[in-house]
């Protein structure tokens, strides 16, 4: 019975051709927008989460508080220094402590220049290995630098392939960084994190020398002995630094972040983005739904006599109701399916365009079956809901009056 109603509804939709398609268009644009935006949003979230995955659960990051977004050191907050390092090292349960400098510097090559990120490699070979391991850095050609490789650098894949210099950088190429000459010792394998793909690594001493950095530390990475105590260690470091700086609780000018905390900050931002996307989606689907309701109302008016005839040959109110609801539901369903397919295509196209023009791999597409499934289901629901009023109106028509039309 229900199946017959489906074929009945399908025949009606087919016979209204252009009008049905226009109505479906109203829905699938919304669904396509939603699917593509969410697919890209989730892709971005995964990519960014990937950046943080480079820090495992037993590590802490300490940096000056106002570093916030943008490179550390770009703000006026008091930087960490050797004294602070001593305090951090004094906390029990702290195992390895690695200090990092991350700065922007002018890089010249092939008569072109560009500003790139520099990051330091510790002068201690144990700590250097620790950092390579922590960041999961792998070499694709050449070698990673060790504390003896003064004047040598390792570059990320994006730097090597950068179009800013008009010429590919290979192992052995010499680059001029802030007026000093450096030789490329290795090129990194592409990583999930675009920060790693766009970095220039050099020894800490070289970096301090080149950029004339004194007793400053941008970032301290701490490995704790027992990862279950990471929260306690973070609190203890916070307490000791606060006491040393004579700051009140809540007014610290530094931050101690666990990877989980850092991730939740990013997730908050991404959730807001998703919320906005959801809002746009809701509006566009509302408009699409009104389109369906409109089409169905017109259809009820046009088919009044048909409804009367169906009632005369034995259709009950619930039969008419079902036929019209299935019809509007199908408009939603077809719109949802086309929209989802189109959305997936759009997402890939947009991420490809974005990655090509920005030279990153940050814009990934993540298509989860649940996204497709819920988009189609949602669209179907919108169709049904939009059809309720017209369908009720149709089902309540009195047979005599309907036949008179």
């Amino acid at each position, binding site marked *: *019975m229900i199946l*017959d109603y489906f074929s*009945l509804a399908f*025949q*009606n939709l*087919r*016979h209204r051709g252009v009008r049905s398609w226009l109505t479906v268009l109203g829905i699938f644009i919304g669904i396509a927008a939603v699917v593509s935006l969410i697919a890209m949003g989730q892709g971005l979230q995964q990519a960014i989460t990937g950046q943080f995955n480079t820090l495992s659960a037993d590590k802490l990051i300490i940096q000056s508080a106002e570093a916030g977004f943008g490179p550390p050191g770009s703000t006026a907050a008091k930087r960490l220094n050797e004294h602070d390092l001593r305090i951090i090292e004094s906390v029990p349960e702290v195992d390895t402590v690695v200090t990092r400098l991350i700065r922007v510097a002018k890089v010249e090559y092939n008569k072109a220049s560009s500003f790139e990120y520099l990051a330091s490699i510790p002068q201690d070979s144990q700590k250097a290995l620790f950092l390579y391991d922590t960041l999961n850095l792998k070499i694709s050609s050449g070698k990673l630098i060790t504390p003896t490789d003064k004047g040598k650098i390792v570059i990320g894949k994006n730097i090597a392939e950068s179009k800013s210099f008009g010429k590919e950088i290979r192992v052995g190429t010499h680059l001029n960084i802030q007026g000093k000459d450096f030789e490329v010792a290795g090129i990194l394998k592409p990583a999930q994190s675009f920060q790693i793909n766009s970095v220039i690594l050099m020894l800490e001493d070289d970096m301090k020398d080149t950029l004339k950095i004194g007793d400053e530390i941008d970032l301290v990475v701490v490995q704790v002995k027992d990862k279950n105590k990471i929260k306690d260690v973070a609190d203890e470091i916070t307490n000791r630094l606060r006491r040393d700086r004579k700051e009140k609780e809540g007014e610290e000018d530094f931050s101690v972040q666990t990877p989980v905390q850092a991730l939740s900050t990013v997730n908050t931002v991404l959730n807001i983005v998703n919320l906005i996307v959801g809002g746009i989606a809701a509006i566009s689907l509302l408009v699409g739904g009104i389109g369906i309701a409109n089409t169905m109302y017109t259809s009820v008016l046009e088919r009044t*006599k*048909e409804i*009367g*005839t*169906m*009632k*005369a*040959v*034995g*259709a*009950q*109110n*619930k*039969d008419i109701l079902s036929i019209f609801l299935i019809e509007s539901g199908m408009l939603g369903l077809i719109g949802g399916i086309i929209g989802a397919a189109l959305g997936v295509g759009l997402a890939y196209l947009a991420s490809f365009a974005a990655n090509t023009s920005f030279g990153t791999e940050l814009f990934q597409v993540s298509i989860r079956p649940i996204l497709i499934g819920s988009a189609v289901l949602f669209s179907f629901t919108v169709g049904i809901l939009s059809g309720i009023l017209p369908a009720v109106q149709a089902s309540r028509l*009195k*047979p*005599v009056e309907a*036949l008179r039309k």
Partner: protein
Amino acid sequence: MEKNIIELKNVAKYYEMGESTVKAVDGVDIKVEKGDFVAIMGPSGSGKSTSMNLVGSLDLPTKGTIYLDGRDISHLEESELAQIRGKKIGFIFQSFNLIPNLTAKENVMLPMLFQGKSKEERELKAEELMRMVELGDRMDHYPNQLSGGQQQRVAIARALANDPEVILADEPTGNLDTKTGENVMKFLQDLNKKGTTIIMVTHDPQRAEAHARTIYWMKDGKIDRITRKKKAKM
């Protein structure tokens, strides 16, 4: 078994038109025996169409009682009426009223769908009926691909889909030329010979007298007179 398939007892239908009340049908008694061919005659505005709607349970009376196969249907709910209509009454309309989006065969299948019959059963029966009205070669045509006479024959087939007790025909030849109209009448006449009760509303006295055995002449919402033939004209 009831002798009368349909009986109207002192039935009235009033419409409120602003301040005034229009008495479309005012105290009508009609008895239709099983197997009879009844015509309801009268000029437009005489109340014959309203009577027809009441007889066909498409409308409920303001006053009086309507019996269909011995059951009082004057106060039934719309969905119950729909079920009864679908099972016991077959409708033929002046303007055919075929569903334009469905093929001829699908139109014939429709009443059986609402009775919950299986697809195989519906198809088999529809094909049989289509052949009966001599449209076996037009099953998959849409209504707009058929002539008026052909459409009305599809409508006859549709009216017969649930093996109704009675066929209600509202000006069945009104939109057809004389010759095609006569052809449609022949089908109705044949059905009647096989035992189907037929009630036909018409304003054409010749057609009524040519085919019907009992004729109710209506005037101003009342039965003016009734004429009966002893035997059907052969």
